[in-house]
């Protein structure tokens, strides 16, 4: 088996992780226009919840994932009610507020659980073979989780009354309200949903990552660049940009050092945004 198929497979696994971690941001940044600098910390909350449910309470991993989404989502809804809703359309204040939230969350987890790394056991062990290569079976779980999550949010946004309300508010908030849509309740739900997706990502990726209080920081920039390249408010666009970014990093990494591959991809992202500032898959707006 040549090197290319291996790199493509690894790219697929990386893309699934990236996509899972970015979906919440498509909702919160893309649809609600809030730059949430605490995005990574909601992923961290999900990872810790998964650790607690699976390693401490010894419940099945499925419960850990569901619990992580629920905890992160409820926490997100509370944060929206208490903090975020006061700062809509006020960019600098939102940045400061969400930055403060990210620091507070990290410190609380440091105090509560120490800085020690937590380990979440792989719920699915062993590998599967393609040709002569073996990949961890759990990678398939991540791919399936990412595909399911994208399918779920697409259905939710494009096929349900809730999704239509969110999209109506995004297009014309005042008119949506004049038709009887409770915009502030919808905001709370969508922010909570975005955080629940971040929590879900934290739980699903926890067994293959290291869980510690400051882990969130590393997720923020990756998710942000993926969402921006994808066209900010597009789930499918973000899926495509996750694939593009991860596959090119992985494939290039097969021919040169990882560091050079990352630099080339980063330059590529900058070039894309230079020539298509609203991302590869932005709807043309008039």
């Amino acid at each position, binding site marked *: 088996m040549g090197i290319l198929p291996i790199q493509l497979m690894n790219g697929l696994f990386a893309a699934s992780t990236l996509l899972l971690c970015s979906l919440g941001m498509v909702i919160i940044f893309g649809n609600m226009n809030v730059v949430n600098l605490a995005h990574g910390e909601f992923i961290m909350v999900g990872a810790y919840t998964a650790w607690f449910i699976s390693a401490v309470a010894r419940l099945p991993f499925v419960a850990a994932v569901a619990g992580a989404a629920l905890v992160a989502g409820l926490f997100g809804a509370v944060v929206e009610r208490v903090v975020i809703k006061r700062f809509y359309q006020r960019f600098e204040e939102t940045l400061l507020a969400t930055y403060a939230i990210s620091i507070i969350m990290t410190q609380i987890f440091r105090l509560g659980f120490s800085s020690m790394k937590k380990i979440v056991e792989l719920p699915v062990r062993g590998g599967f073979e393609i040709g002569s290569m073996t990949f961890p079976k759990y990678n398939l779980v991540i791919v399936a989780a990412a595909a399911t999550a994208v399918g779920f949010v697409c259905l939710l946004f494009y096929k349900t009354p809730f999704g*239509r309300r969110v*999209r*109506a508010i995004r*297009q*014309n908030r*005042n*008119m*949506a*309200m*004049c*038709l*009887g*849509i*409770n*915009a*502030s309740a919808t905001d709370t739900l969508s922010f909570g949903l975005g955080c629940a997706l971040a929590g879900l990502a934290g739980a699903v990726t926890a067994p293959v990552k290291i869980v510690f209080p400051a882990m969130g920081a590393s997720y923020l920039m990756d998710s942000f660049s993926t969402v921006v390249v994808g066209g900010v408010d597009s789930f499918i666009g973000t899926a495509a940009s996750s694939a593009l970014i991860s596959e090119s990093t992985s494939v290039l990494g097969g021919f040169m050092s990882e560091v050079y591959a990352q630099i080339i991809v980063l330059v590529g992202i900058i070039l894309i945004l230079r020539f298509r500032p609203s991302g590869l898959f932005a*709807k043309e707006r*008039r």
Partner: protein
Amino acid sequence: MTVNHNSGSVLSAVGVSAGYAAGRVLHGISFEVRAGDVIALIGRNGVGKTTLLRCIMGLIKPDCGRIEFLGAPLAGPASAIASSGIAYVPQGRDIFSDFTVRENLFMGAQRAKKGVAAERFDSVLEYFPALRAHLDRRGGVLSGGQQQQLAIGRALMGAPKLLLLDEPTEGIQPNIVAHISDILGRVHESLGLPIIIVEQNLKFAMGRANRFLCMQKGSIAACGDIGELSEDVIAKYLRV
């Protein structure tokens, strides 16, 4: 002084003042809408007609004064006011341009059950058959006249008890204006729906309204039965 002596009050405003951060626009507005009324709200550009409708709709809060709708004070955000039965067709129509015509219409029926909304959808299409051919097209690609019909149809989807229309004939071809006037007449007659129409097109306004309110610099300068809308009033408050 008017047609409907015995009919109840639908909307009443007492001493309403409101404005924007830049300054007060409405100064102590008082008027009443009674059941069966079609009120033409007229006045030159910039006198505050749109601001008054936005204020009724809850998009801006009055600094002082009171507005009552069907006997209860109007309060809360626009969504609550819409839910209490006031529908608004804003100047510029504000169609959701990414939604199809069908989706735009159903957006107007937030509080209705599925079956009820479907029935209203059918009757709205009877009023505006021109929309039928465009149901699956995006609202943003429609012509101005089609968008206006869509905006009125969307408002009717909520089965409102009061309809606010802001310059429905602005930038629309004369034959469509006649059609819209026609439809409004039919809607008013069959549903008995009270309407406030802001209008520059006096012919249109006088054809539909039974009463008029004439604004000048944020106040009501004249009002009365449409028959009392004299050449003097028109010359004084409307001619540029």
